């Protein structure tokens, strides 16, 4: 094979490739007769997959203002403010409890890069991915969403998929 001159191999190559060249026409023709795979977006929508990273939703009552999400955010797009409040003791004669109350939880979606580290790092399951994706704005400043809006998106978070049969159930306390 190494002795074959490039000129000869090129000539045989052209004849050898001819069936492939012709079957290429068949491929485009068949594709033309099949339907389109695209979705005409504003008129029709497709359902994003359950685990789609559309927007981050906040379950406010789970948040303890621990700041882990804000600190782990690579581009510092989470703004958290909170204060401590005294609550009456749980039992008679006990100490008053000190509770962190969330005052502000903003995510700037103009900065967010959808890495999901905040969702991963949250120790109290206060942050969730939602497949909701239609929240574009005409003004970039309006992409800063507060905890009320993040709470609204909580309703769009799908139920977690059921575990596979035989999977170990976490906890048990």
């Amino acid at each position, binding site marked *: 094979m190494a002795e074959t001159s490039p000129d000869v191999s090129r000539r045989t190559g052209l004849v050898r490739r001819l069936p492939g060249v012709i079957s*290429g026409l068949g491929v*485009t*023709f068949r594709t*033309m007769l099949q339907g389109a795979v*695209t979705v*005409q977006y504003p008129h029709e929508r497709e359902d994003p997959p359950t685990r789609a990273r559309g927007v981050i939703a906040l379950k406010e009552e789970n948040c303890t203002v621990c700041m882990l999400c804000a600190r782990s955010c690579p581009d510092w797009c989470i703004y958290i403010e909170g204060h401590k409040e005294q609550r009456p003791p749980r039992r008679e004669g006990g100490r008053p409890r000190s509770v962190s109350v969330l005052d502000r939880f903003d995510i700037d979606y103009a900065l967010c890069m959808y890495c999901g580290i905040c969702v991963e790092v949250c120790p109290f399951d206060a942050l969730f991915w939602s497949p909701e994706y239609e929240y574009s704005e005409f003004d970039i400043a309006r992409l800063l969403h507060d905890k009320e809006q993040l709470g609204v998106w909580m309703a769009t978070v799908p139920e977690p998929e059921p575990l596979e049969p035989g999977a170990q159930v976490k906890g048990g306390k």
Partner: protein
Amino acid sequence: MSLAVEVPWGVILAIKTLVVLAIIPLGALILGYVFLLKMMSHMQSRLGPMDPGGYHGWFQLIGDGIKFLQKEDVMPAEADRRVFALAPLVVVMSTFLVFAVVPAGPRLIVADLDVGVFYALAVSSLSVIGVLMAGWASANKFALLGALRAAGQLIAYELPLLLGVVGVVTQAGTLSLQGIVTAQRDGEIFGWGGIGNPFILTQFVGFALFLIAAQAELTQTPFDMPVAESELVSGYMVEYTGFRFLFFFVGEFGTAFAFAALAATLFLGGWALPGVEGTAADVLGPVVLLVKIMAVSFLIFWVRFTYPRLREDQLQAIAWKFLIPIALVNIIVTGVFKAVF
């Protein structure tokens, strides 16, 4: 002859000119919409424009044209201004001149030249001058390279184009396009004259050669090195904007329409429909011709949307080493058959 009103020749000439002038943008629109926007999209599993105009985006290209008219007319500072401005006109002009000899009915022809085929192929190759003018006058290295490639390619493929047609001319015994249509209509297949004798049956090799060469003449993929967008940006058109670019665009698809019309006339029987004679043929002729043009255009654009671009040396090798020898053999075989039968 049967017209009751004597129409002065000047008025007839004006009408003919207007009709031919309207055919080029209209043909370009039809081909651009049906094939570029719709067929290509479906071959890529998508729908193409769906919104403009309400029904399947039919308004898209017209809207694009209006957009081009609004654009600023930019001319490079170093450009040869007059040549730069003239080049798109030359390209469109060559297409315009082809339609002068394409018959759409027994009497629907601008000028029934005795050397119709010769004339059509001669004026269709005028566009290479426009392309060279555009590339040279743009004062841009990409434009110049594209124009040189276009010149080399168009000259190389002019030969198989002409030689592919020689077989048809030999068989028909005339160079007049009207005569070729008549020869096909009155022809017989082994004594059966039901559908005449479209030359695609006997001159299939010529038809294939003509289409391949036309593909190269139109600088369409797989022969689109002159406008190769990934290496030459847009070749000779790179400095053109707005209205002048629109001219090139209309010229590209108008020329495709013209070549499809030529192929339909030379190989598919042109306007002729079996059993239709006289005035009815004049009325139905344009429709029949359009259907045949669309069929040929489908082949042209099908190939365009299927294959990747060839290399420059492959392009030249195909023309000189394969197409021209095949065309010469085809001429000899046709001549022998013509002499024997």
